[in-house]
């Protein structure tokens, strides 16, 4: 039993398979490439898709940042980072600017990513049409025929029932004018950060066995109607109680007196702002 025999846990053949799938994903922006997802030492649904991408991509000179729900210190982020570090020995960091590889669950960092960085997003439900159609064989055909009526119908139903088209987090996007894609469950706030980003964004769904990608400088448009435009979460009039930032995604924190205060969700950026070392917040 030699669990630690391989660099980056997986055997080389597995890593090569995952890289091939990632290359195909880059070549067809937004298309969900099936891949032979391995069972990992963390649970399916806890980020195994992202982890497999990270392990397949990482090299000895990389600097890794892992965040979960905006925080480097969240249990899942700490666990994933510890696993990657134990099997590779690479350097890790919390500063978004220092990282070459960022694995994330649910957030795109506030600081805009650069061209020599890769963002890996963990995806629980890669299929944007799943709520419309439970069958994989059918959704695959709908994508092939670019039949996204169901996705628009869902938004339309929301408008009829609730007066608002926004679909919470994971609001579907159309990539490069072709495939409609689930942007992982990032909040709507982060959707615009995908549009013509400098960095490569790879999305990995381990349990559902799919890899897809948004290559740099690619058009990404959130689905919307002309008379019901896409809107991000409303953060106007709120500021971080710790660093004072505005225009960033905030966590609502209930204080002991029952009132709500707000703190930066991106804890690394918040800390950097407090010590005065960061560029200004990167909200849209």
């Amino acid at each position, binding site marked *: *039993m030699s*669990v630690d*025999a391989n660099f980056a*846990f997986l*055997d*080389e*053949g*597995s890593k090569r*398979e995952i890289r091939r799938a990632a290359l195909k994903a880059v070549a067809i922006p937004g298309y969900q490439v*099936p891949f*032979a997802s*391995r*069972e*990992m*030492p963390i*649970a*399916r*649904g*806890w980020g*195994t898709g992202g982890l497999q991408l990270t392990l397949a991509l990482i090299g000895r000179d990389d600097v890794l940042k892992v965040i*979960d*729900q*905006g*925080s480097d*210190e*969240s*249990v*899942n*982020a*700490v*666990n994933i980072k510890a696993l990657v570090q134990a099997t590779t020995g690479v350097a890790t960091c919390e500063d978004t600017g220092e990282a070459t590889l960022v694995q994330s669950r649910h*957030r795109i960092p506030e600081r805009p990513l650069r061209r020599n960085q890769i963002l890996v997003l963990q995806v*629980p439900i890669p299929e944007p049409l799943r709520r419309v159609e*439970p*069958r*994989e*064989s059918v959704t*695959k055909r709908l994508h092939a025929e670019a039949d996204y009526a169901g996705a628009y119908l869902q938004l339309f139903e929301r408008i009829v*029932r*609730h*007066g*608002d088209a*926004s679909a*919470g*987090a994971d609001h579907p996007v159309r990539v490069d004018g072709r495939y409609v894609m689930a942007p992982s*469950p990032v*909040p709507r706030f982060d959707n615009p950060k995908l549009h013509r980003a400098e960095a490569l964004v790879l999305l990995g769904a381990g*349990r559902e*066995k*799919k890899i897809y990608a948004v290559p740099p400088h690619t058009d990404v448009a959130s689905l919307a109607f002309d*008379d019901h435009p896409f809107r991000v*979460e409303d953060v106007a009039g709120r500021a971080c109680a710790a660093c004072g930032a505005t225009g960033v*995604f905030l*966590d*609502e*924190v*209930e*204080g*002991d007196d029952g009132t709500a205060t707000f*703190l930066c969700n991106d804890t690394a950026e918040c800390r950097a702002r407090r010590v005065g070392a960061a560029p200004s917040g990167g909200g849209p």
Partner: protein
Amino acid sequence: MGYVAVKGGRDAIVASQARLTYERLAEGRVLDVADVRAGLRGAIDQVMSEASLYDEDVAALALKQAEGSPEEAVFLLRAFRSTLPRLHHTRTADTRPMHVERRISATFKDVPGGQLLGASYDYVHRLLDPDLRFETDADARAWLARWRAEAEAAASAVGTPEGGDAEAGEGPDGASDALPKVLDYLRTEGLMEARADDDRAPGDVTKAALSFPAGRSRRLQVLTRGQTGVVTALGYASLRGFGPMLHPTVGELRVGRQPLSVPDPDAVADQIDDPEEDHYLGTVRLTEVETVVPVAVSAAGPQDAERTALGFDLGYGACFGRNETKAIAMSLLDQTLEHPDPRAPTHDEEFVLLHVDAVEASGFISHLKLPHYVTFQSELDAVRRTRAAALGGAGDADDAGVAGDAPDAPTDGEGTP
């Protein structure tokens, strides 16, 4: 400050891990892995089957580490499996030469080669045995010495089995080699379709994502890796009538040691297919089930196209270890999935194959324990906005005049007082 409690994760994790170790060791005693291997054979067989990794020592270690939880043990074994390169495929194995320890048929009272009960819980009363609390290793050795002496005495009384059936010789452990398949009898009678062997290279669900229709080789792999309880439950559902299914019968169930070999890599490279050059790997204990399912077949003859005759269909199940309920349930599902029917979930390939895996199911269910405050914050925002609009005045121009219901609000049923 409830939400922020999840931060500062490192110290909390270390403490949680220490607590887990404490609870495993709290009684001041540890399990010997060899004891797990010797005494928890059912658990070992179950986790080897679900992990699709045949290694009794590693399975015993996983069970010790998982404190006996099959879910966790399978998880550990599957993760371990991901560290192993996959270098060879075994040659398609015919189970006729299997070294059979147990073999029963529910279709025929007397089958060629005979019924061989072997070891089974089927024939014992399930009464707790309080004496087992006081059993010692010395008792075990004494029992074994008696058993061997009796077996030798019986063998010398009967004489060596050299004059017996040449193709079904009985070994000293009571097992038989090369028993004929019970269902071959039905096939020669023409009651069951004799299909040609399909020796095309099977798909490998561990090396490629499932697509649908999955094809039979992939279906069988997913089912044999499936969680014992889930495969059993779905097989039970089909048996109880959630699906247009008649009563199936176990044609043959056999448990035994199956020899396996891999083709010689050099011969493969030279595209030579010569079983003589194969490398013998050893044996794995298998449970194999062939179930007979009565089905309506097509018209009895060209003179009467309206008539349908009855015939028998085959359901097949096989899994590592002695794992009989699961193998039978698997054979039921193999048959149902060969006959898709959208009205019945057990006849629906996607429904069955995408939900039987223990690692996938427990992983996604347990992820609900992770914090979700980003997505929930987003949800909260949407809920507040729609409620504000519905309650009047707070909505913006887009929302004006739209009487939004609260999302998924329960409506009063007619019977509500």
